[in-house]
């Protein structure tokens, strides 16, 4: 047995013991589960936030700062990925690496990387499916307070729709959305992501919640009733736009759409 194999086996055993130690409290339930917060949220969550989906009510109505942290993590990950993709596009293989790649016969020039995909499925489906996917994403995003879904899920579905648009554009098939419409281009997507992130940050602060309550009181004084759930809807929409435009930006740059 080689030394590397022995070291790997030992490391595997240590990791297995550590994972057992982590899972042990779940498997050996001597201590009862903490129930105070759970019961409080189950009893008052729906009434206080006005939502009818308890998951959304908790993670946006009570845990908005946690959600803000999640979006910051996602923002950092996307920024890293986008900068890596940009660097990889700017500097082609050179020196030793390029020589090795050319020897192996699999080095393709930048022009070849951008070759057009021509399959019947792409040509006929991608452009037509995109509006339906975008509509479903908007539904999941807007109705997250009352049905399963929410900002994150709807945002990723919207990103899939934008990816369909990008693929349809590349294939040049029938029914594609023309390149002159730059709403789905990288520049517009990054602007959308930045403004949606700013909206999430603003909405997460307690000041904005009291401002929203003041707005509701003022509106009801005039005679217009603003439901309490519209705060959660606003957060869902900004999270959905942020996640959707961020993931779509990364994928569109990966597909090489930044030249459009």
């Amino acid at each position, binding site marked *: 047995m080689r030394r590397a194999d022995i070291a790997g086996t030992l490391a595997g055993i240590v990791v297995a013991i550590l994972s057992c130690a982590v899972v042990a409290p779940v498997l050996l339930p001597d201590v009862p589960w903490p129930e105070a917060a759970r019961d409080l949220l189950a009893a008052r969550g729906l009434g206080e936030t006005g939502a009818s*989906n308890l*998951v*959304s009510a908790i993670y946006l109505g009570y845990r908005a700062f946690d959600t803000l942290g999640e979006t910051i993590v996602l923002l950092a990950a996307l920024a890293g990925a986008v900068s890596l993709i940009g660097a*990889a596009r700017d500097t082609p293989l050179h020196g030793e690496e390029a020589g090795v790649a050319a020897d192996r016969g*699999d080095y393709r020039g930048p022009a070849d*990387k951008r070759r057009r995909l021509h399959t019947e499925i792409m040509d006929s489906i991608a452009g037509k499916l995109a509006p339906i996917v975008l509509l479903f994403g908007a539904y*999941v995003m807007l109705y997250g307070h009352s049905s*399963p*879904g*929410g900002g*994150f*899920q709807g945002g*990723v*579905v919207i*990103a*899939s729709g934008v*990816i369909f648009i990008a693929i349809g554009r590349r294939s040049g098939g029938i029914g594609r959305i023309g390149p002159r419409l730059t709403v789905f281009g990288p520049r517009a997507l990054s602007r959308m992501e930045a403004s949606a992130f700013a909206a999430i940050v603003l909405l997460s602060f307690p000041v904005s919640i009291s401002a929203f309550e003041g707005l509701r009181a003022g509106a009801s004084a005039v005679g217009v009733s603003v439901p309490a759930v519209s705060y959660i809807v606003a957060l869902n929409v900004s999270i959905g736009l942020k996640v959707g435009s961020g*993931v779509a930006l*990364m*994928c569109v740059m*990966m*597909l090489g759409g930044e030249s459009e």
Partner: protein
Amino acid sequence: MIEFVIALACAGSAYALLSKDLLHGTIALSATSVLSALLFFMLRAPDVAITEAAVGAGVSTIIFVWAIRETDRKDGR
């Protein structure tokens, strides 16, 4: 039924780990994601199921396929 789905998901992830063709492994991983989404739905967590289907089977598959297209399809070990 739940045990059956878990067994299928385990088989899919094992194939994804062991497969030498990375594209086949990616497809198996995507199928595993769909099965986990089904499992989440059966366990009455539809929010998580939507997330798993959209992220696991959708976006991450696209990212993996792009990475394979830009590098090498065979596992070089």
